[in-house]
């Protein structure tokens, strides 16, 4: 190739490296603010680490003595590999690490120093052909044009249409292709080995592009109107975590389970109206509730000796016991030695269970289909009854008595048909609306509640209000829900269907 050709190629490399480098930096900043919130801090620290790493790379470049072109291309491939897969890797490790910042800054540092290494090498490669004056002016011009292009493409096109992980792979591929072209054009010793290496990296990135799940597809994020920080399909459900500034939300199959801003209202109302009146309670059973938020409330009572949590999906307790943001939410509930997690279906588990519990929490998803509907039937409550101590109590989350009034009272009727005494109550949770619960026991609960310290919503006066049903939510007649009529699912479908169509 002519000198002119080589020169153009090298300048094109400057351009791609600049574009790709900035893209990797923006990706890391975006992911950090998706996952950790507080975008100002995240972007500043990521950019800081990145620039510092570039400095380290530049400094290291002095140790490259021989085979400049060969090292240059090798580094190019390394940038392609690390930079291209960084976004996908960060998403993948997020749920499994205690401190997300360690892998985040590590990867930013590695990519930054590689990019930092690359520019001085380029300058030296070109120095044979250009005067210093031209050299500096040309290289920096291309560098800054590349940066401009990257910073415009990123928010306007790449994130909305490609998604974060895909963008990473795309630019990694671009990096690798430029490296391969350079390899072909320049005269380099040992080119064969390098070529195999480069093609390997390219193949890896292409595979990543096609096979990685669209981790943060814009369409999905748009559906939630929040940034998605984690999403995964397990054999049982699709788990999605979102963040909107300091608000973290959990969705299961697209249905909101909690918002970190007001979940304390839900979980205090779920646990304390019952448990605060059971002074002798020692053993608690939680059915569903793999987020550990109910367990957090239960562990406020020092006399509780054991909490058994039965959740179908092992992914839920695992996620909520490893991820730092989430363990902060549930106050590390799963690391308490009192807590035992069982991954099993609640119905099947109760069928073989012989233990007796003082307090049972049934925190299942809403009865929106026949499978879940079974967990609200007289047959299920008969099983639960056998597991409940004579002076114990069971609490059940039962959808919104405002939106699905008949459904709510259907659960009440079902509990009566199963021989329970009930205390229906409700609470206002801003992200949910008016929400209903029912306390069920063998005989009426006596005594005043003794609330533990640290509650944000419940006290003596808000407790008394829970049990007041205004006229638009008072009891309506409904059939008991049985396996053989699934009355609840039918009410629920009609009522929520009507509400959502409005």
């Amino acid at each position, binding site marked *: 190739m002519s000198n002119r050709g080589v020169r153009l190629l090298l300048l094109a490399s400057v351009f791609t490296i600049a574009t790709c480098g900035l893209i990797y930096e923006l990706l890391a900043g975006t992911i950090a603010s998706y996952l950790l919130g507080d975008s100002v801090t995240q972007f500043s620290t990521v950019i800081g680490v990145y620039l510092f790493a570039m400095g380290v790379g530049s400094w290291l470049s002095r140790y490259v003595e021989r085979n400049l072109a060969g090292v240059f291309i090798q580094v190019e491939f390394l940038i392609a590999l690390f930079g291209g897969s960084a976004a996908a890797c960060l998403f993948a490790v997020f749920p499994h690490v205690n401190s997300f910042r360690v892998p985040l800054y590590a990867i930013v540092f590695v990519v930054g120093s590689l990019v930092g290494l690359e520019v001085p090498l380029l300058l030296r490669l070109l120095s044979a052909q250009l005067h210093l004056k031209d050299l500096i002016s040309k290289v920096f011009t291309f560098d800054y044009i590349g940066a401009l292009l990257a910073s415009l493409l990123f928010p306007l096109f790449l994130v909305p249409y490609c998604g974060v992980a895909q963008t990473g792979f795309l630019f990694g591929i671009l990096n690798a292709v430029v490296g391969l072209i350079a390899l072909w054009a320049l005269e380099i010793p040992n080119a064969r080995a390098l070529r195999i290496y480069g093609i390997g990296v390219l193949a890896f990135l292409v595979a990543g592009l096609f096979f990685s799940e669209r981790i943060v597809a814009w369409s999905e994020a748009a559906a939630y109107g929040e940034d998605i920080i984690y999403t995964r399909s397990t054999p049982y459900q699709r788990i999605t975590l979102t963040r909107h500034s300091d608000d973290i939300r959990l969705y299961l199959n697209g249905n909101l389970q909690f918002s970190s801003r007001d979940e304390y209202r839900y979980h205090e109302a779920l646990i304390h109206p019952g448990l605060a009146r059971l002074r002798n309670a020692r053993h608690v059973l939680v059915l569903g509730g793999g987020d550990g938020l109910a367990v957090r409330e239960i562990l406020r009572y020092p006399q509780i000796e054991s909490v058994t949590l039965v959740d*179908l999906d092992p992914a839920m307790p695992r996620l909520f016991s490893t991820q730092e943001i989430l363990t902060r939410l549930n106050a590390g509930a799963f690391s308490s030695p009192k807590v035992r997690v069982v991954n099993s*279906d609640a119905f099947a588990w109760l069928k073989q269970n012989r233990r007796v519990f003082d307090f049972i929490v049934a925190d299942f998803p809403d009865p929106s289909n*026949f*499978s879940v509907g079974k967990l609200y039937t007289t*047959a299920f409550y008969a099983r639960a009854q056998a597991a409940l101590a004579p002076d114990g109590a069971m609490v059940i989350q039962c959808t919104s008595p405002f939106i699905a009034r008949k459904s709510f009272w259907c659960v009440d009727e079902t509990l009566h048909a199963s021989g329970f005494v009930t205390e229906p109550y409700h609470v206002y949770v801003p992200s949910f609306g008016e929400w209903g619960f029912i306390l069920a026991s063998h005989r009426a609960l006596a005594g005043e509640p003794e609330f533990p310290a640290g509650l944000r919503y419940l006290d003596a006066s808000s407790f008394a209000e829970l049990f007041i049903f205004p006229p638009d939510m008072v009891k309506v007649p409904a059939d008991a829900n*049985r*396996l053989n009529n*699934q009355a609840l699912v039918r009410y629920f479908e009609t009522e929520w269907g009507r509400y959502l169509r409005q």
Partner: protein
Amino acid sequence: MKTTRRQFLATAGGGAMALLAGCGNSPRVFPGRIVGASAAAGHRLRDGAFPAPDETLDAEVVVIGGGIAGLAAARRLDGRRDLLLVELEQETGGNAACGRNAVSAYPWGAHYVPLPNEESTEVIALFEELGIIRGKDPRGLPIYDEEALCSDPMERLLDCGRWQEGFLPQLGVTPGERRQYDAFFARMEAFRRTPGAFAIPLDLGSPYPELDRITMAAWMNANGWDAAPLRWYVDYCCRDDYGAGIEHVSAWAGVHYFASRRGRAANAERDSVVTWPEGNGWLAQKLSAPLAARIRRGCIVWNIEAAGKYTFVDCFDLARERSVRLRARGAVCAAPRFIAQRIVRGLAPAQGLEYSPWMVANVTLDSPPVGPGAPLAWDNVSRRSRSLGYVVATHQNLNPVQRETVLTHYWPLDAQSPADERRRAVARTHDEWCGLIAEDLEETHPGVTGQIRNIDVWLWGHGMIRPVPGFIWGEARRRMREPHGMVFFAHSDMSGLSLFEEAYTRGCQAADALLARL
């Protein structure tokens, strides 16, 4: 033959699906086998000579056949008399047999019992003993074990390309056809409310000779009930219960289906049924468990004869290839009548016995089938299919997430005469049956073939007695009920309707009659 556009599309579509399923032009081969029944053992009765017994054992009473009737009789005799029950299959249960694989238990034949009527006292007593009935509510209505009641949704029908709840066609039904629905069901309700009209056991009811003489189709014609959806529905019901449609069964049997059920429950609707993943196999196993030590399996009874004060029962042990003579004071023969009259020496053959052949397949799927409209139910029928659709064996499971499942596919073989159908059925290979079954399921659920993991097939050559005109209240059936010396008979054949309650009650009655004579 002119191919209609629809047929063409169906074939083309089926072909495309077959390609998609990854099997090119040759039909896919499904793992599985033809499991039962032991037709070969049965044929030996007709053709083969058995070796003379080389050993004689004493038993006070012997029960021949371990179907529901035989098990009921044995249960009644057990503890009162020294007892042996002889069954030719490796398992008791007869038409209520069941199987099990890694995914689920499933029925091979009978799969449910409707809420028993008050007059089905034997069955009610059994249900109470087994805990299926748990007590009575203040109104005196039985409280059923909820987990035994068929879970909702129970039935759905694929018609006009959509699944609808229930089997009575609702889509595109004209006002005129609706008026026929109303008239037909009003008439059935009137029969149902008439005391002593239709009962279970059926011998407690009334003969209505005018209904017994003609077919259900003829009776419907006479009443002007010609609406296609109504006739399809009534035909479906008759095929489901009798293995033969309205052109074959008597109007009495047809009306009995609709007018005899009066069972009630404190905690279920009138049309509820009790069922288990293994179908009535659950009941058969509960009946046989306490009798285990008194049951001889894999032994075919080939001769029953009286000599002096003894009744000799000769049976051939299929595994050991030798015959044993049982010397008893009396016996209950609970084998089907067409066999009974071959093995009971001197028993006059009953005239006019017709049996419906059936094919039952258990199809294991990687995931439950999907379709537009109503969600998967327990019993799922397509109006366009000649099969009776499928029952979901995992429906009664309580775990909320089900991926793999077993469908029990029911197919009464009634296109031609029973003899021809029987011949055709046994001639077909496993692959040929799988082809028919997969094609039928594919019509109902395009693409389902790719989900099929295994198909096992069971052929019932003489699955159900057919209540053809004149049979139920005729001479043959009356004579079938008479004992022969000290041999008493018990089988649902003697009712002319193949129902659990009939079989069970016959067994109890035969045992009581025998006990009274000992």
